[in-house]
């Protein structure tokens, strides 16, 4: 059958262009633009300057969300598959410590490993990624083979990985990092890395077998199994990738801060989940796209920098941010109900 495909291509279909569906991200993109315009207007009224026409602010806004964004790329895939990952923030902390300890400047006398200073940055990066990969594999294996809920498995990892981070140096920060390592977090690199991984996994989700299986498992794990998919193995792979990306985020963060601190990344997992959910990824699985998550991350960035720009108290910022996340899920539920009633 494969040979006669070219001749069998259906010519009878009506032209496609006319009924091309609008991408579902359009509405969330509208929200993003509206929000920027709102801050622009409020800016002129209360602060007397433009919100948008300030490249430095935009850069900071995007930079601070890049680390969350990298995690969100992994979390999006986990959620589409019907899972959840609460461990990302702690894995960031754990990787930060391990990567930093291998990235100290040559000859630094108080180094963690005095014999391992001045290494090529490949080593700390590889160690950090490995660290994330191990955490992700443990998450995935627990969920796939012991059948415990993802919430519990990753909650355990969240607590333990944070413990590793604290134990590593008894909570002491690791400083004196090599310039070659710090370069990874300098300038636009974090943003480039974020958009790079987002692009890669956008393609993977839409055009590869990996992506199709991810959606299928999220939409109906039983049907996926009956369709011949090795559901357990796929679950491990997706959590492994999520762990890997958390590790990457930890490396980027450490390089940007030029210091490894055990407490970094607290709450990152929730921001990443929020970015995915705002971007239209459904917590019940099977629904969502990477582009939505990227927009969701940008919206979180706009909220933070917009409120800072307007000199809104940090506590209010949090209160409103919480409201936005809930509103996004409510809107998502509403959309789903409407779809079911069709």
């Amino acid at each position, binding site marked *: 059958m494969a040979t006669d495909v070219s001749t069998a291509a*259906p010519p009878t279909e009506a032209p496609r262009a006319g009924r091309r569906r609008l991408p579902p991200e359009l509405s969330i993109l509208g929200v993003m633009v509206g929000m920027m315009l709102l801050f622009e207007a409020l800016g002129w009224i209360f602060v007397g300057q433009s919100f948008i026409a300030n490249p430095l602010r935009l850069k900071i806004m995007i930079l601070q969300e890049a680390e969350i964004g990298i995690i969100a790329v992994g979390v999006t895939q986990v959620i589409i598959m019907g899972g959840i990952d609460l461990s990302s923030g702690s894995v960031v902390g754990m990787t930060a410590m391990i990567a930093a300890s291998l990235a100290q400047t040559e000859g630094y006398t108080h180094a963690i490993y005095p014999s391992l200073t001045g290494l090529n940055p490949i080593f700390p990066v590889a160690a950090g990624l490995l660290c994330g990969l191990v955490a992700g594999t443990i998450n995935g294996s627990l969920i796939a083979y012991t059948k415990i809920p993802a919430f519990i498995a990753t909650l355990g990892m969240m607590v333990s990985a944070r413990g590793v981070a604290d134990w590593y140096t008894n909570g002491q920060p690791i400083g004196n990092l090599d310039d070659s390592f710090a370069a990874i977090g300098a300038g636009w690199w974090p943003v480039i890395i974020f958009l790079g991984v987002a692009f890669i996994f956008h393609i993977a989700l839409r*055009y*590869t077998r990996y992506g199709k299986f991810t959606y*299928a498992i999220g939409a*109906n794990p039983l049907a996926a*199994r009956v369709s*011949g*998919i*090795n559901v357990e193995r796929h679950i491990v792979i997706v959590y492994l990738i999520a762990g890997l990306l958390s590790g990457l985020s930890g490396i980027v963060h450490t390089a940007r801060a030029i210091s490894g601190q055990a407490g970094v990344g607290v709450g990152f997992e929730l921001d990443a989940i929020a970015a995915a959910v705002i971007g239209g990824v459904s917590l019940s699985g099977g629904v969502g796209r990477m582009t939505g998550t990227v927009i969701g991350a940008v919206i979180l960035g706009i909220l933070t920098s917009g409120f800072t720009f307007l000199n809104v108290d940090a506590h209010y910022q949090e209160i409103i941010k919480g409201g936005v996340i809930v509103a996004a899920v409510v809107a998502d539920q509403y959309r789903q109900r409407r*779809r079911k009633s069709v």
Partner: protein
Amino acid sequence: MGNISPSTAEIVRLSGAVPGAEHLLEVTNVRKAFPGVLALDGVSFRLKRGHVHALMGENGAGKSTLMKIIAGIYTPDSGSFRLKGQEIKLASPLDALMYGIAMIHQELNLMNFMTVAENIWIRREPLNRLGLVRHDEMRRRTKKLFEDLEIPIDPDVEVRDLSVANRQMVEIAKAVSYDSDILIMDEPTSALTDREVEHLFRIIRTLKEQGKGIVYITHKMNELFEIADEVSVFRDGRFVGEHPASEVTRDDIIRLMVGREITQMFPKETVPIGDVVLSVRNLSLEGRFRDVSFDLRKGEILGFAGLVGSGRSNVAETLFGVTPATSGAIAIDGKEIAVTNPGTAMDAGMAFLTEDRKESGCFLLLDIMANMQIALLRHGHARAGFVKEREIEALCQQQKQRLRVRTPDLEEPVINLSGGNQQKVLIARWLLTRPRILILDEPTRGIDVGAKAEIHKLITELAAQGVAVLMISSELPEVLGMSDRVLVMHEGRMTGIVDRKDADQVTIMELASQ
């Protein structure tokens, strides 16, 4: 006389003031339609005080729907409902309970982590002056109830520690505890051993003596003659007849149950039957079925008949590796293979359309393309992990046209399709894998007549092309019309394989209800 409210009815009933009408319950001319199906059509039913009234019929005949209407779970579209001569309307199961109608569900509805006593008196717990639950009083009442019914269960045990039979007893005691006049039992013996059935029948006789009316649903003939006073038979959502149990024979009832004419034409063609493709020997799955053996040949359609719960679907799931067998052998083309998961079955050339479209078939939120291609992806059509979209889209379009899936385009989410079209998408999923052995579990359940005929035609075509088909169906006319041979199961065992020329409804029903 106007309607009386459920709460008034409850007070009056508990005071014992209402004189007994001859019929506890009279349901007349009830009609109930679900989207696409007319489940009950002008059905009437009467229950006498102190009688056990059995409901019989094939799966889908309307027994369960009628029972759920009596228990207040469904509201009928039309028809009248008289309780002891009073016209009433039930809006909820709670209403029914207050009117004195209690239902014992086939799937048990107890809370596993609560004690027996808590389960029985839920919502009616005896309270002290502070509004706290009086556990001692609850225990005392439970003990009293259990003594009356001769049930030897400790009220303080958690339900999850009880056997299925004991849970059934608790359910019955709970229903009795409402002082109900009418008890509905839906296949109460399906999980019980002979000794436990005897105990249940003793309880039922006690209840009869107390003047209660019992609606008893069963598939088992011997129970019918042992316990029932009357029997009503249903067929295709219609009431066929009511008879005193002492005046009918087993054969009469079977005839009443299946006595419809085959109205649909099945496009059965005689095609050359080839070599044995699938050979199954002593296949068993512990607790589900055992010692199932048969051969399936190229071009043959083997029907699987039997009642729901007889193990038909379990055999299919085991063949396909969803629940791997605990013993027995599966051979393809004479070569024994170990089917440990659906992947190995697919690699051996099998395809499996599952019974429950929504639960284990469709990816409802995904589009038609995603639903169709998922099984195919196992067999290539990808380069370095990248799916060859154009190639697959062309194949999906072909299937869509061949099966006449009615949809504007392949990007429509499957949730928006009708049941028939969803089923066609799932069939397309498996046809794309070009199977040699096609297992179909209820291929036409819940879909409209038009789509049904199309699917029947397709199955015949596939057989003509040399595909070996195993078709499970609860609809006897479908099994008889389509199959070359019919394998019948009863309670996890094969009770026979009947050739097309010898197969008729009575033979099959006899084998299926033993």
